[in-house]
C-alpha cells in the first residue's frame, strides 16, 4: 500500500473554500513575547497552497518561534494564524509537520523506523509503516539504508531521513527550521537540489527558516526578510527561479544575484 502523500491525512472535513485564492497559511498581526521580551511585532504573511515561503533574518530574531507558532506548538500573544483555514493551535498542529534544526533522529530506531515515526504514532502497525516508508526510501535515494542506525549515516543522509520523516506524516504544511545548517557547503548544495526535487514531485505548503539567503531564494517562491528583535518584516522578495532543476545556473543568473543582493541589503538594514 502506498501512502497518499499528496493529499491531506487530516481526520476532520476539509476547510471551507473561500472566493479569493485563500492562502494555505496566513498570519495577520502576529506578535509574540516571552515574559517581557518581545520577539515578534505584527507579522503579516501568507503562503498559497503548495507554495514555499523562505524566512531569513538575523540570529535570534524569532524565526524559530514564528515556525513554532505556525505549527501550533506555541500560542501567539496577539494576532491570528490560520493553517488550512483553522486558527485553533491543536488544529494547526494536526496540519503541520515540524522539522527541527538538528535532525533529531532517534538513535534507538533504524533509519526506516525513524522515517515511519508519524505513521506509527497515527496507529499503523510496524510492518505496514515500514512498507509504506520503504517506497519513499527508494524514491528519495535512500535505498539500502533502511536498517541502518542513525549514527552510521552521513550528515546528508540523516537530513534526508529527517525530511522523509516530516513528509511521511502526510500533512499539508511543512515547517522546516534550518534543515541544512549543520552540513558542509557541498553537501548543503546537494541537499538543496534534493529537496527541490522532492518538493517538485510531492508539493506541499512549506515555510522554510534559514540564515542562508541563497538557500532561501533557491528553494522558495518568496522570501520574507525579518528584522532583529522584535522581528517585523522588512522586505518580501519573489524568487526569480524557485527550485530550478539546474541549481548552479539558477544561482549564478544575474536576476538571482540581484535579488540576493537586495535581500542581503534588507537583512543588513533590518539588523540595525
Amino acid at each position, binding site marked *: 500500500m502506498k501512502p497518499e502523500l499528496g493529499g491531506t491525512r487530516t481526520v476532520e472535513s476539509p476547510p471551507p473554500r473561500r472566493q479569493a485564492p485563500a492562502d494555505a497559511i496566513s498570519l495577520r498581526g502576529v506578535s509574540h513575547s516571552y515574559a517581557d521580551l518581545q520577539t515578534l511585532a505584527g507579522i503579516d504573511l501568507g503562503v498559497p497552497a503548495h507554495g514555499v515561503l523562505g524566512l531569513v533574518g538575523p540570529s535570534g530574531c524569532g524565526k524559530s518561534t514564528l515556525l513554532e507558532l505556525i505549527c501550533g506548538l506555541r500560542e501567539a500573544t496577539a494576532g491570528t494564524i490560520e493553517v488550512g483555514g483553522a486558527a485553533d493551535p491543536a488544529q494547526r498542529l494536526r496540519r503541520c509537520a515540524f522539522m527541527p*534544526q538538528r535532525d533529531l533522529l532517534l538513535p*534507538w530506531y533504524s533509519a526506516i523506523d525513524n522515517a515511519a515515526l508519524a505513521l506509527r504514532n497515527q496507529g499503523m502497525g510496524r510492518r505496514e509503516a515500514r512498507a509504506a516508508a520503504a517506497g519513499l526510501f527508494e524514491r528519495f535515494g535512500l535505498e539500502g539504508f533502511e536498517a541502518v542506525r542513525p*549514527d552510521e549515516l552521513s550528515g546528508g543522509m540523516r537530513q534526508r531521513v529527517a525530511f522523509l520523516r516530516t513528509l511521511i506524516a502526510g500533512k499539508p504544511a511543512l515547517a522546516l527550521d534550518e534543515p541544512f545548517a549543520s552540513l558542509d557547503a557541498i553537501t548543503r548544495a546537494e541537499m538543496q537540489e534534493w529537496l527541490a526535487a522532492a518538493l517538485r514531485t510531492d508539493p506541499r505548503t512549506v515555510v522554510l527558516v534559514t540564515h542562508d539567503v541563497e538557500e532561501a531564494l533557491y528553494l522558495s517562491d518568496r522570501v520574507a526578510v525579518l528584522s532583529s528583535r522584535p522581528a517585523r518584516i522588512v522586505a518580501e522578495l519573489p524568487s526569480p527561479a524557485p527550485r530550478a532543476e539546474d541549481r548552479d545556473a539558477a544561482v549564478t543568473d544575474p536576476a538571482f544575484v540581484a535579488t540576493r543582493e537586495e535581500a542581503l541589503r534588507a537583512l543588513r538594514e533590518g539588523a540595525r
Partner: protein
Amino acid sequence: MRRWLLPLSLIALLLGLWQLACSSGAIADALDLESFLVPSPAEVASSLWDNRGLLAENAWVTLREMLLGIVAALVVGVGFAVLMHRWRVLRDAAYPLIVASQTIPIVVISPILVVWFGYGIAPKVLIVALICFFPITVNALDGLRSVDPEAVKMMRSLDASRWQRFRRVEAPAALPSLFTGIKIAVVVAPIGAVFAEWSGSSSGLGHLIQSDTAYYLVARQFATVVVLSALALALIGLTALAERRVVTWR
C-alpha cells in the same frame, strides 16, 4: 586480553605478598597476635572450600534479600521517577525529601525496622530497597529530563500522544541513565543486606560474619567476605550484560 591480564596480575601480586607476610609471621608479630587471627590466602581458600555448604546456604539467603530489595527499589523508583517527571508539582514537592532521606544513615534505621517487622526477610528487603531507591530514582529522573525539548516538539507535530512520546522518546532516552542507577544500586545492595542482618537475623552472610567474631573464626570471615564480594561482582556483571542487550545504540 590486556584488560583482564593487568588487574589479574595485580591481584596475584597482592595475594602473593599477603601469603608471604602471613607465612613468615610478619603481620602477626607486628600486631602481636596469634597467627590463626591473621589467616593467609591459602587458609582463607581452604576455609572457603571446607565451609562451602554453609557459605552457599547463607549466600542464597543474602542474595535473595538483595535481589528482592533491588527489584522492589526498581519498581518503586522508576514508578516514582515517571510520576515526578509527569507532574512537576510532585517533583518540586518530593525531590528535596528524597535527597534529605539520604542523610539518614541506614545503620540507624535498620534496628528500628527490625523492631517493626521482626527477624524475617521483610526488614532486610526493605533496607536493601531503601538504600537502592535513591540512585535508581534520581538517575531515572535525570534520564527522563535529559530528553531534548526539540525532540518532544518534533514528536508532537508527528501526532504522538503523551504515551507515545513517553514510549518512543522519553523512556528509551532515560535507559542509559537508569542503568547507571542500577549499577550503583547493585554495589550498595550488599551493604544494606549486611547491615540489615546485623540488626537481627539468624542466617545470611552478614549474620555469619557477625557470629564468627565471637569464635575468632577469622579465616571463615574472610571467606564470607570473598563470597559476598563475588555476589556483588556477579550482579554488576549481569547488569552490564543486560545494559548491552538493551541499550544497543551506544
